[in-house]
């Protein structure tokens, strides 16, 4: 640190501001100004994540889950998105860091895998070359060493005959193999944080199961922090320790996987659970959908963004329409952003929701 003298008194404040957890996101806001108005894709999101843990971010399209992850990676084009808040990665605030500083972290300390591995890999370069490139940006090694490393990585993610497959092009791989190769690429620099954005949505069920197993195994081996972003509650249940449910750019509920699946508190979470048919339960005669459609992010409903679709908003004497509920702890770190009183909530869960799930 080479700070000018007048900034010395700021230094202690800086230290206090440092995040405690490995990844510490505080009041993140990502707004996109457009001709039609400001799109508030993420509007005040906070969470923490330790090494070796997996956070699942669940939500529908437009909930802000992907935008959140792209902000952590610093992948929003400059000048397009207005980002505020703080993202501490191992104590360093990424929001206030320069683009070059964030670039040097990308791929090395944090890496990302994407939904569709076919479009996410360059069609003109071999798989090996793309992994080598990822390794060589952050490691001063010869091409031979990097190539050897790429083959090892391909082997590690379960690609047969890696020394031959390294010279294949992405289109010559099957969907599952491509996603394995993507994972190999993401893990080539041994990152501390891995973000997986819908990593299995484009894959077949049997292949999805393989990839989820692989991510779980690799996480144990590398002891990295993992964020898994998905709309599929089944997938998060497979992997996540903690789950954040997002709606219209904010967290509706946050808790351990057990909190979310066994004692969910937010009507939106109830809605998600009721909407999906369950293969592991008695078949219900009818699904319980959430009424209406997700809101426009330019014109988010006032008060609780979920209130027009909520079956319980009337219990709150108009508070739902006027005041935005804060994300509050209901005990043991299970956070909920809802105006319902604990009694009403418990009653709704016990009588209306739980029996039908």
């Amino acid at each position, binding site marked *: 640190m080479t700070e000018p003298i007048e900034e010395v008194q700021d230094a202690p404040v800086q230290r206090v501001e440092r995040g405690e957890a490995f990844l510490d996101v505080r009041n993140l806001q990502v707004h996109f100004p457009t001709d039609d108005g400001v799109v508030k894709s993420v509007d005040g999101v906070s969470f923490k994540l330790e090494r070796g843990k997996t956070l699942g971010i669940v939500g529908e399209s437009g909930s802000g889950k992907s935008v959140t992850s792209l902000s952590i*990676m610093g*992948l929003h084009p400059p000048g397009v998105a207005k980002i505020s808040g703080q993202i501490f990665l191992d104590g360093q605030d990424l929001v206030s860091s320069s683009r070059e500083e964030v*670039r*040097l*972290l*990308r*791929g*090395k300390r944090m*890496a*990302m895998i*994407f939904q*569709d591995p076919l*479009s*996410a*890999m*360059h*069609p*003109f370069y*071999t798989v090996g070359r793309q992994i080598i*490139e*990822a390794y060589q*940006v*952050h490691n001063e090694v010869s091409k031979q060493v990097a190539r050897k490393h790429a083959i090892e990585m391909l082997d590690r993610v379960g690609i047969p005959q890696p020394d031959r497959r390294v010279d294949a*092009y992405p*289109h*010559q791989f099957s969907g599952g193999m491509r996603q394995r190769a*993507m994972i190999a*690429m*993401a893990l080539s620099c041994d990152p501390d944080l891995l973000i997986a954005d819908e990593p299995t949505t484009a894959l077949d069920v049997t292949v999805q199961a393989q990839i989820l197993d692989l991510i779980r195994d690799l996480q144990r081996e590398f002891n990295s922090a993992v964020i898994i972003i998905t709309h599929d509650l089944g997938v998060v249940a497979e992997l996540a320790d903690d789950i954040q449910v997002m709606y219209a750019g904010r967290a509706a509920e946050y808790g351990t996987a057990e909190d979310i699946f066994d004692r969910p508190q937010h009507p939106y979470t109830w809605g998600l659970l009721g909407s999906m048919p369950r293969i592991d339960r008695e078949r219900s005669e009818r699904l319980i959908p959430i009424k209406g459609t997700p809101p426009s992010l330019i014109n988010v409903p006032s008060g609780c963004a979920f209130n027009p679709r909520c079956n319980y908003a009337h219990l709150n004497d108009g508070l739902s329409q006027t005041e935005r509920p804060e994300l509050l702890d209901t005990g043991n770190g299970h956070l909920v952003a809802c105006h319902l009183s604990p009694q009403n909530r418990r009653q709704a869960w016990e009588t209306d929701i739980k029996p039908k799930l």
Partner: protein
Amino acid sequence: MVFAYLVRRVIGAVLLLLIVTAVTFAIFFLVPRLGGATADDLAGRYVGKSAGQEQIHNTAVRLGFTDPLYVQYGRFVKGLVVGQDYNYGTGIERCPAPCFGYSFLTQQPVWPDLVARIPVTASLAGGAAFIWLITGVGTGIVSALRRGSVLDRSLMSVALAGVSLPIFFTGLLSLSIFSYGLGWTQQGGINPLDETNPLWWAYDLILPWVTLAFLYAAAYARLTRAGMLETMNEDYVRTARAKGLTERTVILRHGLRSALTPILTIFGLDLGLLMGGAILTETTFSLPGIGQYAVIALRANDLPKVLGVTLVAAFFIVLANLVVDLLYAVVDPRVRIS
């Protein structure tokens, strides 16, 4: 597999050229007859004014105009492959293979004339292509990366002007400014390229190059810009950024590489087309190339020459097409046949 593909493509190219010759031949030799002209009428142009009917008819027979069309076409194709003898009354002229026809007006075979003009056209097309590739693609990249900026908008306005203004306007304008006005450049004509005077060669051609390149550069700038805007939004470009590559690498190695592929196709075809003669440019700058030859031939209604030019132009386009398709397979591994 690659070999089979190549063989198939070459056979296809040859067939295509045969069809082109047949169609061109038919147009030039059949159409006058449909208009009511007899073989004698056609031959009339190649004898003296005072020739009698019998003399004309003899000429028509001698030149083969009285034969059925397919016989004439067969003779023409045979001439392409093994050469042909032309009987012009007082002697027999040998037109060696590839015989592109024989001009009865100038009493010369077409091919040597054409061959002599190819270097001029090639010089013009090659140099202009070099300039427009560099400036057009460069402009396109800069515009795409600064989308919406003042720079982007002014570059694109210039490009729009370039696409809209015809060569005979920009060419004459630049001639009147740089050549007649300032006296910086030649007023037309060309020094052939050999090892003694490459600078003179370039000096003679700089104005036609720039004029021709301006038109194409403008089009290429627009194409490159559109292509870059599209590829920079691709998922794999996001992946490249996620790896931590520098923006420069992301743009050049990942974005531009894909954006250039469709441009390669267009470039090949444009170049092929120009090799068949840049008619307007060659005429404006008095360059003795294939295009100018075509104009002269058309004015004189010298059909064998026109046919020859058409064939050469078609040949270059078909060749360019083939080369582009093969190159495409090199550039885009997905096209390769495994």
